[in-house]
């Protein structure tokens, strides 16, 4: 009697637990996956954050319209950092503690990304950054991934091209913002590997309106063979115009920081002949028909431009696209949005084709791109042309 009652209780309890459990699982299945994001939508890096946010919003709508990921809808929670690392930290805490997101995609700049890394490492939530700095993934942090090429690779690609042209003496004019400063340091570091010597090294503040003085100094440097300008925003456009005004007779290299049509618009005729390393996205139509990236970049470009206007696509929005799609692939591979499983799945991504190139992640490479993903472009007649 007594025993039966106990058994009955046990069974009933188990049934009850099962029902609750099932309800909970069912609810988890119906609940949207919460995607957290913090981007520099205003401030000096807004030309990064703005297309990134637009891309996330647009594609999350599309994914949800097509039935979501693994049957679950995606819900975007976004905060604007204005490029301020301290704000990024507070918002990251808000995403992790208050909004209880399943993943964080974003961080437009290296500074905001770095400020947040200790938090996501502690919270053990996967984090895919859209920022360029090599410090983000070197050394590797278990929960941190990133989509764009590093500034170190950009330097490498530029110097590779210089090597092919027989250039060894290079002048640099860098922005003093985080991007310019970090890339300058990387270029100084990898220069010797390509036999490149930095003979002039000038800087300008991101909000400067005139760089003639610095360029005049560079121009008068003995033996100058080329100029490199790491930086983003209005700075490189002004450098390019001042460069043309002073009548330099050597080539000018810009960085991947200006990889959008906007740069050509801002710099005008002065941009003719400027070279820069960039992702294939910029030259989508000019890719060979059998290029594996072609369908991806054509798809993203036409989708983005259909909403935001002809010529509005930039590689920056592409970083957000890659991040979101990689996360989607990882959730599908893991079979759930459970953070640890997704992290493992992200680390095992291979052969993923994004706008930046083919991604092959591993335990000691949380970027998964190599130099071949970069294309060397030249600006001719107001448009990008593939070099070689």
């Amino acid at each position, binding site marked *: 009697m007594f025993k039966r009652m106990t058994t009955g209780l046990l069974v009933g309890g188990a049934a009850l637990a099962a029902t609750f459990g099932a309800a909970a699982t069912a609810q988890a299945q119906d609940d949207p996956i919460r995607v957290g994001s913090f981007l520099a*939508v*205003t401030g000096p890096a807004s030309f990064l954050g703005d297309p990134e946010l637009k891309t996330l919003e647009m594609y999350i709508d599309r994914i949800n319209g097509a039935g979501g990921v693994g049957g679950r809808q995606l819900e975007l929670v*976004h*905060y*604007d950092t204005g490029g*301020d*690392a*301290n704000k990024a*930290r*507070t*918002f990251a*805490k*808000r995403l*992790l*503690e*208050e909004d209880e997101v399943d993943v964080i995609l974003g961080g437009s*700049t*290296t*500074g905001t990304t*770095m*400020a947040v890394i*200790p938090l996501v490492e*502690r919270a053990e939530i996967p984090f895919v950054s859209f920022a360029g*700095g090599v*410090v983000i993934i070197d050394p590797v942090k278990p929960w941190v991934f990133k989509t764009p090429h590093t500034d170190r690779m950009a330097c490498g690609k530029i110097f590779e091209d210089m090597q092919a042209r027989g250039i060894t003496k290079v002048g640099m004019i860098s922005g*003093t*913002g*985080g991007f310019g*400063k*970090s890339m300058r*340091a990387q270029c100084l570091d990898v220069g010797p590997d390509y036999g490149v010597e930095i003979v002039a090294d000038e800087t300008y503040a991101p909000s400067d309106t005139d760089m003639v003085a610095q360029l005049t100094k560079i121009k008068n440097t003995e033996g100058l063979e080329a100029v490199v300008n790491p930086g983003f925003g209005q700075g490189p456009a002004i450098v390019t115009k001042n460069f043309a005004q002073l009548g330099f007779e050597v080539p000018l290299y810009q960085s991947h920081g200006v990889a959008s049509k906007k740069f050509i618009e801002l710099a005008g005729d002065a941009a003719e002949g400027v070279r820069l390393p960039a992702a294939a996205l910029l030259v989508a139509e000019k890719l060979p028909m059998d290029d594996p990236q072609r369908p991806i970049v054509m798809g993203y470009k036409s989708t983005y431009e259909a909403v935001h206007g002809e010529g509005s696509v930039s590689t920056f929005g592409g970083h957000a696209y890659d991040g979101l799609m990689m996360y989607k692939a990882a959730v599908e591979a893991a079979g759930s949005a459970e953070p640890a499983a997704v992290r493992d799945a992200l680390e095992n991504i291979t052969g993923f084709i994004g706008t930046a190139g083919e991604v092959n992640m591993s335990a000691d490479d949380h970027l998964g791109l190599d130099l071949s993903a970069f294309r060397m472009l030249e600006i001719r007649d107001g448009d990008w042309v593939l070099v070689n």
Partner: protein
Amino acid sequence: MADIRPSGYSKHRKKQTYTRRLGTRATPMQVLMSERIGGMGALIVIIAALPLLLANNYQYDVAITIGINAIVVVGLNLLIGYAGQISLGHAGFFALGAYASAILTARYGLHGALAMPLGALGVGLLAYIIARPILRLSGHYLAMATLGVGVIINIVISREAWLTGGPDGMYVPPLEVWGVELYGGPIWYWIVAAFLVLAVWISLNIIDSPVGRALRGLHGAEVAAEVAGVDTTRYKVMVFVISAVMASVAGSLAAHFSEFVTPEKASFFHSILFVTMVVFGGMASTFGAVVGAAVLTLLPQLLADFASYEHMILGLIMMAVMIFMPRGLVPTLTGLARRRGARR
């Protein structure tokens, strides 16, 4: 030129001093209403009760940020509200404190508890050196000079990347006490709360000290006071140094709490934000300073949900409060309450 103190506050102040000097006993009600005892008590009660409302680390984070800003603003209020001197460069002192803690602990292995006073000492010394030439200036010239100091500090921090990590900032190791890492909202909440209570206590004492009385005596009659033999500059320098040290200590706290510092901390906007907090809460009111810090720290968090309209709304609120409550929140509201009480 430009006296930036609100008119009318000195009368109220003087009454208090007279009462004390005449030796009249204050009624218990008056004691409770006084800033020193009643205000302190209220602040401590609020600080002690607030954690009951805080649900998670993010909410603690906001509360802690309020506390850190309030420490700066309480000090800055001494300078703006009482000494009548404006500073658009206090974020520079804040950042120096933060970077002193960051650099001394991360690069030289010093303990945080040692780095903070060292930073404060350095900032105090710097403030003392520049105070005399700077405080000779008045009004907008003073604003420009302090702004210049802040901008120069900001530029040096973002250029000397080998030491400061440059524009991307640098990590600060977590504070350890007897081998235990101080991490998480609750611990930092109490640390910052203790410093805030200390700052408020120091501020109230200065206001009631001979220095405070001398500063109030200056109101509108600086030359007369000088003729009467009061060394006005000495008092102004003193308050300038005290407010800079408070900013530096707050900076150190911020560095250890957030474990990350950026040159953004020294930006012109950060300085403006501190001044806005002083004026918003109400100049020459220590508790106004705390309220100003709380409101302007919370506001961007509340507005974050309005996405792109955030800045528009923030600008509108700033203008509206200043237009309809030019004396600031706390003096206007207590004024209203007092009038209503009198009517009854």
